[in-house]
């Protein structure tokens, strides 16, 4: 089984405040845990197989959970997969506590190992960070390219496909046992060849986490910015016959009421095809 917990669902920049209190204002970070037992609470064990998707500001909330496991004792190995290298997906990493504990290992994955490494190093350079360089981090670091032909990471079968996004971004599918989730943040729907590959990647998944930054009328003014509307997301999800969609990468100035409305509109668009729509929010847990 898979437990998914959302820690940051915003795009672009963190937008904390009263207007966004229910859905949360942290930028992209999703924790995916695999577990086998049916016993209650099995999904919550700190040392289950697990993967972190993106390192936005939500990571600051997730890290306290991770620290309860082996990572808190300097015996852990964190797997952090980066869809791409835009700041909103990285900016939680400069204060990621497991990096400061000797004995830990942190593996960063992305479309290209050199770009993963240069991004992480950039975050810690002395102009931007008091740490003054990754050489001062206590944990062992590893930079890896996500294999486009598929691989296994901490018990998860991982496969990827390219999004349509300025500078590129990856969609990541994680399969654990017979359960699967697909994470497609930062993708602009509309290029049929790319969309078809994503539909193939997502086919039959239990959950598809999808970029739904804009309303259609906003999208019209932001063609080429690399994000989608909630309506387009639902239409693509119907093609892939997934069970559930989590609308994700919310626009920073969309308040809670706006996201409520977008959720209802998306569910309406899904019609009676049995597709369930969830608007992702910080703290949301889904057991699949």
């Amino acid at each position, binding site marked *: 089984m898979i437990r998914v917990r959302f820690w940051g669902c915003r795009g672009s*920049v*963190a937008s*904390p405040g009263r207007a966004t209190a229910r859905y949360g204002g942290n930028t992209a970070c999703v924790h995916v845990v695999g577990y086998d037992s049916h016993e209650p609470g099995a999904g919550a064990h700190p040392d289950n197989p697990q993967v972190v998707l993106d390192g936005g500001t939500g990571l600051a*909330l997730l890290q306290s959970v991770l620290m309860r496991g082996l990572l808190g004792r300097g015996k852990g190995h964190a797997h952090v997969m980066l869809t791409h290298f835009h700041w909103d997906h990285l900016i939680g990493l400069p*204060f990621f506590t497991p990096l400061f504990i000797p004995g830990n290992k942190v593996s960063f994955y992305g479309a290209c190992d050199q770009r993963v490494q240069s991004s992480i190093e950039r975050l810690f350079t002395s102009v931007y960070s*008091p740490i003054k360089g990754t050489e001062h981090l206590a944990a062992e670091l590893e930079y890896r390219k996500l294999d486009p032909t598929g691989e296994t990471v901490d018990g998860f079968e991982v496969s990827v496909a390219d999004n349509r996004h300025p500078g590129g971004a990856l969609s990541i599918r994680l399969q654990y046992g017979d359960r699967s989730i697909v994470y497609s943040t930062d993708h602009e729907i509309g290029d049929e060849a790319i969309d078809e590959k994503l539909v193939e990647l997502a086919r039959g998944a239990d959950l598809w986490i999808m970029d739904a930054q804009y309303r259609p009328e906003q999208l019209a003014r932001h063609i080429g910015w690399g994000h989608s509307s909630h309506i387009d997301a639902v239409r693509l999800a119907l093609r892939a016959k997934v069970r559930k969609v989590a609308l994700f990468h919310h626009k920073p100035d969309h308040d809670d009421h706006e996201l409520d409305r977008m959720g209802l509109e998306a569910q309406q668009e899904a019609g009676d095809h049995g597709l369930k729509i969830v608007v992702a929010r910080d703290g949301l847990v889904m057991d699949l």
Partner: protein
Amino acid sequence: MRGEAMKMTIFGARGSYPLSRRDQLRYGGNSTCIHFQTASGDDLILDGGSGIRLLGDEMMTRQFGSGQGRAYILVGHTHWDHILGYPFFAPFYRPGNRFVVVSAGQTNAHIREILSGQHEDMHFPVPFEDLSADLEYLTFRPGQHLALGGFKVETVQLNHPGITVGYRIEADGAVATVFTDTARVTKARLGDGMGGPDPDDGFSKEFKSRLAHCARGSNVLVHDSHFLEHEIVGRYHWGHSTFEDALEMAHLADVGTLVLFHHAPEHSDAVVDEKLAMARDLADGVSVEAACEGMTMELGRSRRPQSGEWQADVVDWGADGGQKGAL
């Protein structure tokens, strides 16, 4: 609304990184940004943490929305929490607006490189060249005095990794001093060029009195209060203070109001409430507040206004004058 005096508004009070938590709604989760406005409407911004996005939205409802705004931007330092909001500052994308970015450094190219680095195509979809407002740069050495339009500004290097600047900002006869990030100097020396042979060489005392001189008689001192005493042990080199350190500086400098600032991301509203209550218990004549998003203070006349012989080292005359640059 313009009043009789300089107005200070907090748009981000959080340190280290912005964070969204339901138990932090009162003090807010945006990272550092403070806005100053003189009675005659001159704008000055200190720091571009995530709070600057909200300030920018407010400014766009004024003359910045039609490309007729001008403002000074003081760069405290360039750690992420203090700059990550600039790419989301809407007035930067409106042609006609003019900004003077004021920072400590050797060359204008240096700060431009740091700001444009946030827009590298690998990390941000909008190139720096798309900032259609007019950005100018003004650099100084910490310790120098700056005349910026209607603002008289004094500068001092703080005790924080790299070069971090504390600012004394005077206008309309009122003074606000801001020390966003600074560590307990008796425990660590962190700023570039601040290393010294031993802890008893008088440096600590000299350093504190330099900061106190900068903040002397301020109506308001906004000061780093990141850690609680039990948290700072072993973390002196992180570059932050406790509220006790902030109070010590407030007393040394004889300020009217101390505003506790740079709240730790781990601290809920209840913890900041507690920090504020403890600080008030020890305040001994200083009034104490905790910075929260949206907090506005109208600053009355300073208790110790500037003496007549104040001399600027760097001058930007503002909208009316053509002259600019180091004297």
